[in-house]
């Protein structure tokens, strides 16, 4: 029973003897093997750690277990929230939108506005035109966004709804009451059964940039367009902006959700910050477009390069070299020397790397995440002399595996470093048991791996549901690299203390100074 002076929640409540008894007694009614024959559970659990199990596991062709990817519309919603006063609108079932909103909200600890047009069975049969007509009108009337960005769920894609015609039809029928003729409603088809959330990001960004610039005259200027990609570290967007600003360069950050998912307390405003729609409409006039996530913007950058014939580059300002390259590109585009402030910042980062390297050097890491994130963070690990033993990318696009392999081949330990494209986190579990590492770097889905394998998890990635505020930090630029260095080094040191704290056994190595 609870003691009123010390009320405990489930963490400790169920440790009380009366509840331990409840749980023990419940087993007599259960049919799980743990209740019937615990030895059998032990036996199978051990078997899952073997090479034999690993081979069977890696041979899986159909079932995905514990994925490390999500579906297209999630990325489309992120794009929309990076534009000023823009409502993401998903043509399909509201169940999907409830999921997108929950998913982002659990990560950012911030509201995530997004509507759907609530298609149900009749719409699945007759198409969702009526839903689109009512939905756009209601959305515009209630939330008064300056732009509505439409993407689709797999339901709408399977039945083949035509977004262009539907949006046009909705405007015609509304007759300008809520949806004036020039009301911007960019759209993208984002089928969940193709690619992953980064594909949806690409499709929606492509839709935004191609449709908003339509009919807008191109008047070349010196601005630089920057596309952050599916960036879940809002601090990274700010780092990038600060670097560009230190060159005094004019720029358009296309899809800047850094304020949207970082609202101050005091009052609630549905929308904050974001790319100005006017800027987005004129982004074709810019001098160049830089993508900071090549694999999240393949289609978009192809348009920029091939159709717009704009100067373009793919950069990845994570780690020292990635940031150097980004800065040199800016220097080249602006014709300006690298400012003194950045030189100092770089010097400080390198100094910090030289302070901490003994703790990362030679340490084995397993890491998973989105393709561009992995290129960046793995580069940084290599710059520190660490060994990324298992690099796993569930949503690896074409070309990524080769690029990662080439990157790993720059390491003296290259023969022990493995790339796992298209694999999931249950595969990773087998890899960790058979070819162990010292640390893992990944998202919250790694916590079950941490429990099962005892490998410490360093929380870097998306989504992170069970650690707070990490997304507010930067992992880009020199300051971002310093954050990576701090998080990783200190986790190594935490673990060193953990391993040596045995009183009168190992605590001679429990050093005060490290």
């Amino acid at each position: 029973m609870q003691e009123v002076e010390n009320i405990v929640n489930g963490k400790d409540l169920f440790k009380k003897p009366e509840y331990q008894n409840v749980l023990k007694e419940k087993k007599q009614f259960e049919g799980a093997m743990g209740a019937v024959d615990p030895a059998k559970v032990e036996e199978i659990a051990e078997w899952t750690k073997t090479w034999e199990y690993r081979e069977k596991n890696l041979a899986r062709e159909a079932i995905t277990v514990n994925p490390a990817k999500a579906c297209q519309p999630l990325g489309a919603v992120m794009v929309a929230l990076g534009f000023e006063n823009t409502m993401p609108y998903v043509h399909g079932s509201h169940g999907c939108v409830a999921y997108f909103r929950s998913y982002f909200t659990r990560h950012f600890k911030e509201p995530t506005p997004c509507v759907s047009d609530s298609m149900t069975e009749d719409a699945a049969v007759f198409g969702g035109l009526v839903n689109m007509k009512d939905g756009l009108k209601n959305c515009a009337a209630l939330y008064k966004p300056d732009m509505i960005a439409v993407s689709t769920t797999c339901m709408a894609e399977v039945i083949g709804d035509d977004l262009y015609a539907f949006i046009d039809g909705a405007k015609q029928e509304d007759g300008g009451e809520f949806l004036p003729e020039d009301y911007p409603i960019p759209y993208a088809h984002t089928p969940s059964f193709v690619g992953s959330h980064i594909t949806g990001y690409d499709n929606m960004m492509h839709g935004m940039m191609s449709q908003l610039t339509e009919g807008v005259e191109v008047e070349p200027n010196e601005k630089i367009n920057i596309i952050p990609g599916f960036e879940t570290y809002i601090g990274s967007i700010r780092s990038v902006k600060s670097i560009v600003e230190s060159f005094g360069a004019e720029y358009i950050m296309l899809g800047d959700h850094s304020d949207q998912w970082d609202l101050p307390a005091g009052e609630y405003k549905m929308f904050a910050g974001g790319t100005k729609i006017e800027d987005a409409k004129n982004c074709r006039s810019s001098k160049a477009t830089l993508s900071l996530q090549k694999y999240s913007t393949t289609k978009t950058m192809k348009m920029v390069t091939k159709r717009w014939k704009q100067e373009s580059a793919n950069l990845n300002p994570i780690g020292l070299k990635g940031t150097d390259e980004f800065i040199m590109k800016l220097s080249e585009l602006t014709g300006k020397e690298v400012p003194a402030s950045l030189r100092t910042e770089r010097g400080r980062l390198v100094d910090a790397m030289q302070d901490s390297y003994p703790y990362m050097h030679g340490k084995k890491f397993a890491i998973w995440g989105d393709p561009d994130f992995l290129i960046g963070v793995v580069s940084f690990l290599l710059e520190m002399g660490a060994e990324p033993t298992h690099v796993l990318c569930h949503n690896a696009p074409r070309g990524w595996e080769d690029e990662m392999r080439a990157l790993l081949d720059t390491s003296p330990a290259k023969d022990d470093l493995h790339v796992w494209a298209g694999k999931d986190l249950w595969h990773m579990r087998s890899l960790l048991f058979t070819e162990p590492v010292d640390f893992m770097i990944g998202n919250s889905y790694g916590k079950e791996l941490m429990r099962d394998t005892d490998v410490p998890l360093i929380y870097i990635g998306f989504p992170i549901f069970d650690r707070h505020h990490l997304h507010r930090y930067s992992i880009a630029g020199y300051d971002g690299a310093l954050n990576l260095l701090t998080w990783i080094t200190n986790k190594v040191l935490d673990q060193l203390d953990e391993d040596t704290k045995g009183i009168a056994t190992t605590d001679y190595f429990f050093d005060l100074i490290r």
Partner: protein
Amino acid sequence: MGPESLEAKQKEAIEEVLKAYPAKAAKNRAKHLGVGAPEDESQKTCGNVRSNKKTVPGVMSQRGCAYAGSKGVVWGPVKDMVHISHGPIGCGQYSRAGRRNYYIGTTGVDTFVTMNFSSDFQEKDIVFGGDKKLDVCFHEIDELFPLNNGITVQSECPIGLIGDDINATSKMYAKKTGHTIVPVNCEGFRGVSQSLGHHIANDTIRDYVFDGNVDTLGEKVEPGEYDVAIIGDYNIGGDAWSSRILLEEMGLRVVAQWSGDATLKEMAQTTKVKLNLLHCYRSMNYISRHMEKEYGIPWVEYNFFGPTQTIKSLRKIAAFFDEKVQAKCEEVIAKYQPMIDAVVAKYRPRLEGKQVMLFVGGLRPRHVIGAYEDLGMEVIGTGYEFAHDDDYKRTKDEIMRSTVIYDDVNEYELEAFVKKLQPDLVASGIKEKYVFQKMGLPYRQMHSWDYSGPYHGYDGFAIFAQDMDLAINSPVWGHSTAPWDKEGEA
């Protein structure tokens, strides 16, 4: 504020909200909003609201889908089975381990609740069909997870649209192997909310668990005269455990939990119990009615939120049994009373008169009212994501004062109601949490217990009281206004 002025304010709030909509939507939404009065017998449903209808397109509804109702609510917590999210990758990923359905087991070996199994549909599966892939999934699961006691197939939207026959594929595999395979046609576009998913999932339990005569591990449980099953408790944060202990203390034998911390075997043996205890009426009344009709098992609704309702419910349950149980029931009530008195004495003075607005699903919009009132708090607004008429009828008995009732409320409306009625606490889900916290309003998630709980039973009430106090009386809400902006107030 007197009751008249509260009611007037509530009616005004509804009128104001409706003005924002285009005509067609306003007409629709008007039917879903009302003011409930406890003494008003003329109301057919609480506030006379209409429910279980299609959501108005283009608004930020909080509703989920049929897949969420089946995989997320009913089937997902059954711990010794593997639940495949059948279709594209997203649904399973977004719903993974979000509901806090606690269980005991070795995850990945004999239990699987927090894992995500997906058939990860690609374009070719949409074009050529996914039945073959599903069959390979079954084989791979049985090979890699040999201690699973069955597999369910949770259909995502495309399955029902591309003409796949998961029923035939499942049947064929089950016949070949003798394993329990349950195909569930809970595609997200079916129905208007998660509610139809509950119903569909209930029906598949009937068809595949009861009528399927599933093979279960371990010794058979001999039926006893005090056997009961907990139905519609998903063991969120351990709710079913803090309920179970009370039932056992009064001499009942809980042979099954549906479906938090459940095993297939428990569900199968429920057809032999003497009484079904139904907590979440909305999601599991279907199977309870079926068991009544088919196996003659009576069912009784109960409410384990807050001492007043808990005591009422314990006595109601005991009344189905002999004097021995009834006497023990009184002993249980007496045993916990001093603790509860102390909890109320500690927290009521800190919470007295504080007003609450709720928006949740299932049973909570009415069931938790009593728990708040036990702490001296007043619920002035409530509503359900996916309720039906019978829920709103039941709500009439629970409200204590004029209460604004909003069915399938969307974010625009809820925000407007909160701004107008100025409650001291908003209690709803994750999607709205930070909206209200930004405004400086204390907030508790009432789906996940905000990562605390359990809230059921006596021990749960103590946690509930502590959490509400924590939310309302935290110093953080006082920091929103900067000192330089406070001068005018002084």
